[in-house]
């Protein structure tokens, strides 16, 4: 991702006069996409070659088990009916039963989801603390030695595979220096201090790439805004440079930055999966990974569905945020 490469379509269909209409339109779009994505997720199991029940349970399944699963999947019904029954169950919170341990998949999601959210919040905080200062510095100190160094750093941070960064951090700070646990997760309830310590390296691993993407966007966006007339006016009024940059310019540079944040959320969710696998953190990513390795299809289906819904909601939220921030968007 480079500055300016965002291909996201801005909501600019004609006729909308009111914020409510804008919100409603984006909400409907989200629901339609969610519906289409749910077809794909449903299709994941329905489209398994041959008899899905046999593929899912394997050769060792007893005829009774096969019959039960066929009845559960509704394989004797037409596909649209199967989908409606599946969707009705999902909406009620029934994501099926794990084929490995017989537990409701919803229980797994309920346990794993908060862990991934905690990891993401830490990583996101880190992203903001790196991206904003780095981007602001680079845009206000063009050509400086540190700016050139930052350009190099961003290039490397974007190119290095996330799992490799994780392993390196774990080796250096966990194994060699023993400053932080090399892997594992301690729940907040057990010990807030160890909880924090167990999430530091994973949060850095997950945040490092996104931080560089964001920093480059902050830089590009701010460089653009700093040339505008209102910035000159602010300077002419005798405002201190710090106030000009952080109060006047950055606020106006925020809109493209928030959009990029929404787009990056997809990479972020994928990154979380890999990070959790590297550090053995019992979140959604680990659940998905383990489920794929043992072919626990309903868990795979559930985690992918939750990931898509999360991604759609983040995008809806970012679109609405910049709708609020910039009245021009909702009036267009």
């Amino acid at each position, binding site marked *: 991702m*480079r500055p300016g490469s965002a*291909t996201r379509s801005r909501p600019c269909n004609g006729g909308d006069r009111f914020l409510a209409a804008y919100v409603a339109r984006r909400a409907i779009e989200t629901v*339609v*996409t*969610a519906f*289409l*994505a749910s077809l*794909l*997720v449903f299709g*994941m199991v329905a*489209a*398994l070659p041959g008899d899905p029940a046999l593929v899912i349970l394997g050769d060792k399944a007893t005829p009774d088990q096969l019959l039960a699963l066929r009845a559960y999947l509704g394989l004797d019904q037409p596909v649209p009916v199967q989908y409606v029954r599946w969707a009705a169950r999902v909406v009620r919170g029934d994501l099926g039963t794990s084929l490995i341990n017989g537990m409701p998949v919803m229980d797994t999601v309920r346990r794993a989801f908060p862990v991934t959210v905690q990891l993401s919040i830490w990583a996101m905080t880190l992203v903001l603390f790196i991206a904003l200062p780095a981007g602001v510095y680079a845009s206000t100190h063009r050509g400086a030695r540190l700016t050139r160094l930052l350009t190099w750093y961003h*290039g*490397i941070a*974007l*190119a*290095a*595979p*996330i*799992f*490799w960064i994780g*392993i*390196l951090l*774990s*080796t250096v700070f966990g*194994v*060699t220096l023993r400053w932080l646990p090399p892997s594992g997760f301690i729940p907040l309830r057990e010990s807030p201090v160890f909880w924090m310590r167990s999430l530091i390296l994973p949060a850095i691993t997950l945040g490092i790439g996104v931080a560089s993407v964001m920093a480059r966007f902050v830089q590009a966006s701010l460089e653009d805004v700093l040339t505008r007339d209102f910035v000159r006016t602010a300077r002419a009024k005798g405002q201190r440079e710090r106030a000009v940059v952080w109060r006047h310019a950055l606020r106006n540079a925020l809109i493209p930055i928030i959009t990029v944040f929404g787009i990056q*959320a*997809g*990479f*972020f*969710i*994928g*990154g979380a*999966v*890999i990070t959790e*696998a590297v550090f053995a953190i019992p979140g959604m990513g680990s659940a*998905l*990974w383990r*489920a*794929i*390795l043992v*072919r626990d*299809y309903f868990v*795979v289906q559930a*985690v*992918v569905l939750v*990931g*898509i819904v999360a*991604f*759609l909601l983040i*995008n809806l939220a970012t679109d609405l945020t910049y709708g609020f921030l910039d009245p021009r968007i909702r009036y267009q």
Partner: protein
Amino acid sequence: MQAAIGGSDEISSFGWERVRRLGRWLSTPSAGFLLLVVSASILAAVVAPHDPLEMSKATPLSAPSTQFPLGTDQFGRDILSRLLFGARIALLIGIGSTLTAAAVGVPLGLWAGYAGGRVDAVVMRVVDTLLAIPPVLLAMALVAMTGRSSVNAAVAVAVVALPQFARIARAGTLSEKSLEYVEAAVAVGASDTRLVFRTILPNVLSPVLVQIPIGVSRAILLEASLSFLGLGTQPPQPSWGLMIRESRDYMYTAPLYGVFPGAVIALTVLSLNALSDRARAAWRS
């Protein structure tokens, strides 16, 4: 270009300027490294000091030495040779799946943009739905359905990259469609196929070409990620991501083992990103 042979300054500059530009580009570190990776993948069998799959009598996890320049892995296999053969897998999947994605995505985008109306709405809805799924999740879900192998991973990577190409081709088609040269072609009675492939396609090709190095770099990263998770290339094949996965168990005894494949991935991706930045800049100017 016949005139260029004549060698007069003004005319020859057309051909030679390109050659000079190519030369300047080839002398950059990123191009140099890519050239190295490409030659490694082609000549792996010739230049590799050892068989990448051979479990030699050498000590497992030995440190770099003259016989094994980057040391050996847990089975006593030469890490350098595995890296060289790994380049083959990385480029094959990286380039192969990106080109596949372009070969399917671009005609799809052209068709949607050219036909407009209901076709456009349906195609773009599907494309947007694919874009609404986080890439790693989509790839993992596809591999979960089709089974773990390098071919299935490559297909998954191609599916992930496809929507981007469709969007770019469609955007280009929409803006070209209304231009006069296309109207002129319509006026002289060109068929739809001719219009799409002969008139419009050449003019939307540059943004597509600019997307290719970025696509390859993402594909290499995604393939490495899948292999790292055990969902892509399977042992004993030497995939870079798989090597990092295997090195994990030995981070106490052989901390350097995992550094090499990771550095090679990072440098390859960095070089490809630099190449695409240049291509983009050249295209804009």
